[in-house]
Every structure is written in structure tokens, then in C-alpha cells.
């Protein structure tokens, strides 16, 4: 059994009057892929956005309870979100590269965190990040071209490269393949398999097959509640909960 990297305790999230998450207690293991599944609007994305405090952006959003990363509560108001997000990267549903060159897309993070003081160090970070995200071979000759000129799948891998450029410990992926075709999806999945050797990964997905393929642990959310969590194999072969059973067999959702 691997170490627990992130532990949420009685996590509640409210958007104004509406409660989006109810007492979520979920452990995420280090260097493992945890998949979060569930019907739309069930709170999966809300949950992962708590891990890097992206919900702070939304004025009406209120988060109570604890999320501990390596034993430190990251839901603490005094915690510096900038250094938290340096440790917890995120990849979004729709690829969102900056409208800048491929190089600038990746060097931006290291630059603002003061990593890669010299040009050659920065070049090295860019090259490593692109290699880790399996994009290097495709773009090494055109690092000056805008990131937006790449195909959808390449853009998403560019966003993954951007996330790992600051050398985080955790990568959050919010339906990273939902806007991609099957071939691009396969590439990203392969990549996730490779990345889990170094990073703790949480992936939100609507594809049951994807969850089975990439994750070791799966959590099923429904209407803001964590219904069931366990080893992926167990959740998909022999879930304890009737609702989980119904969802994975496609009876609702």
C-alpha cells in the first residue's frame, strides 16, 4: 500500500446557497492515478478544484473542512495559493495554451517561480517537460510557433507539459480527453501511465473505459456525495453500492 498524499476530511463546498459537495472524505495515494467518475454536475470537478484552490476564483464559492497534503491543511486561509499551485498542477477540460509560442507556454511557469535563471537552464526545462509529455519529437523544430497552432491533442499535451514544467507533486486532470479524438486520447492515456511514476495524478473522466485503463483507484460521486471509493478493479467488477453498480453498467447517468 502506497502512502497517502492528499487526504480530504469532511469537505463541504457551497456555491452561494447551493451545496455542491457533502462531507467528502477521500484519500489520494502518492504516485498513483485516482479516477473520479460520476454523472455531470456531481461534484467531481469541484472536488479537484479544491486541491489547488481554483475555487478561490469564484466569489460565491465557500469551502469548509480540511484537505491535507503531506499532513498540512491546504484549505487554510493563510496558505499561499501561489506556492500551492506550484506543487499542484492542473490540466483543464479544453486545451488552453496561452496564445504565445510553444516555448513561452512552457517557460512561463518556471520563470515566474524563479526556476531556470539562465537561458540554457530554461531551455533544458522546456526540453524535459516536452519530452515527459511526449511532445518533444513533434515540436522540437518549431518551438517559436504559437501553441494555438497545434492540433487539439498536441495542445492538451502542451498543457500537460506546462503543468509539469514547474515540477509539481500532484497533477489534476479535469476531463483532459473530452475534447479529443480516440487517437489523441490513447496518447494522453499512455502519457498518464508514464507520468504516474513521478507524480500523483487525479483524473476526472466521463469514460468508464478510461478510468479502468489508467487508474489504480476510483471514486464514484453522485449529487455531491462520494458514494464509493476503492481499487479500480473492485469498483468496476464488484462494487459494494447498488448505485455504483447501476452507473457503471450504464443504467443511469
Amino acid at each position, binding site marked *: 500500500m502506497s502512502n497517502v498524499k492528499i487526504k480530504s476530511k469532511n469537505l463541504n463546498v457551497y456555491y452561494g446557497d447551493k451545496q455542491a459537495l457533502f462531507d467528502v472524505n477521500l484519500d489520494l495515494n502518492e504516485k498513483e492515478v485516482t479516477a473520479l467518475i460520476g454523472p455531470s454536475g456531481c461534484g467531481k470537478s469541484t472536488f479537484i478544484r479544491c486541491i489547488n484552490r*481554483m475555487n478561490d476564483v469564484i466569489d460565491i464559492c465557500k469551502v469548509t473542512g480540511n484537505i491535507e497534503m503531506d499532513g498540512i491543511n491546504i484549505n487554510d486561509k493563510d496558505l499561499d495559493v*501561489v506556492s*500551492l499551485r506550484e506543487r499542484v498542477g492542473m490540466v*483543464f477540460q479544453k486545451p*488552453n495554451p*496561452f496564445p504565445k509560442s510553444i516555448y513561452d507556454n512552457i517557460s*512561463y*511557469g518556471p520563470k515566474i517561480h524563479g526556476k531556470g535563471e539562465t537561458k540554457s537552464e530554461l531551455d533544458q526545462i522546456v526540453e524535459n517537460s516536452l519530452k515527459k509529455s511526449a511532445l518533444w519529437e513533434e515540436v522540437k523544430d518549431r518551438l517559436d510557433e504559437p501553441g494555438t497552432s497545434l492540433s487539439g491533442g498536441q495542445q492538451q499535451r502542451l498543457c500537460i507539459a*506546462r503543468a509539469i514544467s514547474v515540477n509539481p507533486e500532484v497533477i489534476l486532470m479535469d476531463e483532459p480527453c473530452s475534447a479529443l479524438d480516440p487517437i489523441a486520447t490513447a496518447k494522453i492515456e499512455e502519457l498518464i501511465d508514464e507520468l504516474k511514476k513521478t507524480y500523483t495524478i487525479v483524473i476526472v473522466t466521463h469514460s468508464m473505459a478510461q478510468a479502468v485503463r489508467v487508474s489504480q483507484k476510483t471514486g464514484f460521486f453522485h449529487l455531491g456525495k462520494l458514494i464509493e471509493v476503492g481499487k479500480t478493479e473492485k469498483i468496476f467488477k464488484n462494487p459494494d453500492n447498488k448505485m455504483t453498480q447501476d452507473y457503471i453498467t450504464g443504467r443511469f447517468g
Partner: protein
Amino acid sequence: MTKEERLKKRHRAEKRFRFYGLISIFVALLFVVILVQNIFSKGSSAFKKTIITTEVFFDQELLEIQNGASQEEIMEADFYDIMIENLIKAYPAKNRDEEDELLKLFSGDAEIEIKKAFLNDNNLIGKTITLDLTASDDIDQLHKGNYPRDLPEERRRISDFQLVIYDYFVENKKISKNFNNYFFNNGDSRDPELAGIGGALVGSFYSILICLLLAFPVAVLASIYLEEFAPKNKITDFIEININNLAAVPSIVYGLLALQILLATIQLPRSTPLVAGITLALMTLPRIIIPCRASLKAVPPSIREGALAVGASKFQSVFHHVVPLALPGTLSGTIIGLAQALGETAPLILIGMVAFVVDIPSSPIDPSSSLPVQVYLWSESAERGFVEKTSATIMMLLSFLIVMNFIAVYLRQKFEKRWN
């Protein structure tokens, strides 16, 4: 109604609509053509002025200075007698009355023009040179064909004898037209042939410069704060509504405000580009904030999230990503706001820019005119020469506006980045 009939009816309705659309575009184009044609036909002649080629002899007896005189000596010297003595020789006049009529064919600046020739070459005493002297407004308009010479004499500003002289000049090729440098270099004047937009151009330039320096930074910072940093609550909503309302306030109200506060209370100098610039800045501020906020709003939230997710602070995400992306829209909004300010007349009238100012302002605190106010002033003048000057000034103003709008469109298309 059968199916075919209904289908036919739908097609007919579409055809009718296209026809109405074409007609309205045609009507709109027609108005533009009429307007432009009208301004051009009236104004284009103002870019030329009529000159009378005259021989000038610098007689030592009539001048109290010597060859090689210093600049100051020449400036102070009297060239009046030289002017009279030479101009009356332009046509063999028989008596004093005829000489007077002859002299009236030259502009009021003939003496100065002769003096300038001497300033260029202070060794002219005892020599004869050929000078192109500006003709008076009446001859100018007559020569340009704007003045009907077939009216009876008592209804003409030009006497029969002056027409005889004019015809003599034409016959001897002494009268011609060349580029009207006075129109661009001179300030306002009571004499149309000497009046120019130099003062108005400089006044407008200073006003717009001050307006830009005041309005642009304030508007951009206000937009960025309101759009990106301000909490969404009742106070920011109230501010937003008020900005939209201020953009719709008639410009003359800003003129009244400036009159009361800038002139009466703070006692800033009246009729100056400084006050005009501040007034226009107040008026332009909301008109820049609105497009500025719109272009900030148009930057997709995913860009902000992308920046935040790699650990950028709010400030960094805004100034590294959102603002550069919004810049083309911001700049073009600013230029269009300034173009509106450039054409604004009403508030400037209230702060005293309608004053008759001959001198070209050398600083923003000198009394001055501005282009639209100059149009307003000249359009009220009776002399024929001012009709073409008015239209020519409108042409200048319109070309500035077109250039500014073109720059705005260019900036937007050139620098606008596309995402996905």
C-alpha cells in the same frame, strides 16, 4: 394554401427583404456621396491661393535701412512706401482713385510679403526682383471662378475698373494660382485670403494630447480594476451603471461642468488647449472604459485559469496574459474615443475656444482654437473666401478622423490574437 404556394410566398418574402436592404444601402451611399461631393467641390479650391506676379524695386530713398541690415533693423523698418510705390506700377492707373482700386487687389499682407523677401536677402536695395504677392480675397474668389462677374456693378464687391485690371493681369499672365501655404501655416484672420488652420491644428493637437495623457491611463487602470479585481457587489454594479450613463451624457454638459469648475473655480486660463484637453478627457473617459472592459471581458476565462494553475498570482495572470490580449481592443477603443473628442465642438465653445485667436499657440496654456470650432466660426462668416475655408477645414478634420479610425482597425486586425 398548398405546400407549393406557401413555399413561393416564403421565397417572395425573402426577395422583398433583400430588395429593401439594397435600397437602404443605396440611399445611405447616395447621402455619403452627396456630402463628400459637396464638401470637396466647395473646399478643394482653398488649397490653392491666387498670386499676382509683381516686380518690386527696392528704392534706397524710400527705405531707412542699408544693404546688409540686421534682422531686427529689417523687422522694424517701414516697407509701406516701397509697397505702395511698386504695387501702383502693376497697372498703368491714371489717377489716385484708380490707384486705390488697384491696391485693393492685393492682400493686406503685401507689405509683410515684401519685407520677408528682403529678410531672405538683405542686399536687395537698388535691385528689382519679381515677387508672387497674394491676391485679395475678392480677386482670389474671382480667379477661382467662385465669384459671379456678370452681376451688375452695384451688387458686386469688385468694381468694373478692378475687373479691367484683372483681365489685364490675366492677359499678361501676371495672375496665377499656387499652393496655399497660408491655409496651413497661418492662424485665424479677418481676411479670408490670409486665414489658416495653423492655430486650430496646433490647438487641436495639444487638446487631444492632453486628453490622451489624462484619459488613457485612468481609463485603462479603471477598466482593469473593475473587470479583474473589483469584488462583484452593489457598489461596483452602481459604478458600472454610472459609467454607461456618463458615456451617454451630452457633451455640452461636460462643457458646462468645465466652465464652472475649471474656469470659474480653479481659474485655469480660458480658451486654452489645457482646459479643452481636461474637458475632453472627462468626456472621453467613459467612452474608453466601455470598449476597454469589453475587450478584457472577451479574453476567455480559460487563459486566466491556465495562468493561475501554473502558480501565477492574480496580478501576474492579469498583466502577463489578459492585458496583452486585450490591448488591441483597448487601443482601438481609445483611438475611436479620441477621434470623437477631436470632432467635439459644443464643450469647447463653452470654455471659450470660440475666441478670435490670430496667434498660433506655442504651449497648451496659450489661447487657441481647434479644428471643429474653426469650422463653426468660419461657417458663420459672410465672406465668400470663408466658404471654401470652412469646407477645406472639414476635409482636414474628416481626413484626420479617417486616418485615426484606420489606425484603430489596423491595430485590431494586426495584433488581435486568436485562440482556438
